[in-house]
């Protein structure tokens, strides 16, 4: 195990202790530590080394982007649901994936479903083409913006704009 994986296991351990504190308070910290160590060893057993790691100081920006966009997505879909005419134009669009495999690509696939009007429907086997299901007109810009945001989060590009 190299130093990076060790660091990751350590972070997981700290997070699990935090979860224990949330659940149990300070009553029995020792049991919590044992539980967290068991959980963290399970993590080490299961986890696959990931070559990309996020830039933690860029996380707040991404979280903000994500929150704003998912609220917009929810408002948009609520508007369409209550609209008497049901303004929905379902379309399936293939979109190229520029992000590398692993965490960045996984983040793209999962977050797309919460943005306004887009839903990740399928990723082909080599992960280069993402089928996006859309209910509004043009999902292209949304997907491109998200890709840029994720690439920026992982330090792959210098600016969060496409």
């Amino acid at each position: 195990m190299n130093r990076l994986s060790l660091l990751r296991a350590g972070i997981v351990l700290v997070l699990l202790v935090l979860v224990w504190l949330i659940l149990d308070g300070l009553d029995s910290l020792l049991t919590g530590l044992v539980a967290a160590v068991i959980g963290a060893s399970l993590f080490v057993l299961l986890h696959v080394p990931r070559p990309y790691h996020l830039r933690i100081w860029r996380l707040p920006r991404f979280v903000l982007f994500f929150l704003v966009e998912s609220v917009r997505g929810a408002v948009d879909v609520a508007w369409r649901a209550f609209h008497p005419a049901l303004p929905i134009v379902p379309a399936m669009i293939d979109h190229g994936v520029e992000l590398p495999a692993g965490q960045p690509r996984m983040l793209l696939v999962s977050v797309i479903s919460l943005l306004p009007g887009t839903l990740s429907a399928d990723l082909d086997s080599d992960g280069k083409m993402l089928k996006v299901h859309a209910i509004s007109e043009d999902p292209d810009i949304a997907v491109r913006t998200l890709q840029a945001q994720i690439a920026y989060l992982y330090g792959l590009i210098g600016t969060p704009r496409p």
Partner: protein
Amino acid sequence: MSLLLDAFAALLLLIGAFFYLAGTVGLIRFPDALSRLHALTKADNIGLLSICAGSALMAGELRVALLLLLIWLMALFAATVSAHLIARRSLRDAEDSGADAGKSPS
């Protein structure tokens, strides 16, 4: 001040309930499986966030707030993964049977 806080918490809870309603309306009204999935995933996610936030304000306790945050994060994770998996499944089933599951003729 406390009254204002309570009113804000109540507002958040009401907003949450509204989004849950929107999700259900979408689930019933939208024309095909994939569109319905849009409604559910997006509306429920914000609905739960709003309810968690309102409830955390009402409880006024850090541990409760963190637990609710954990619940929301797990729900977010579970919802996005299952939305993708179900969309994918229904798409491939449609391709297998030659039927039309939310595809436009493009």
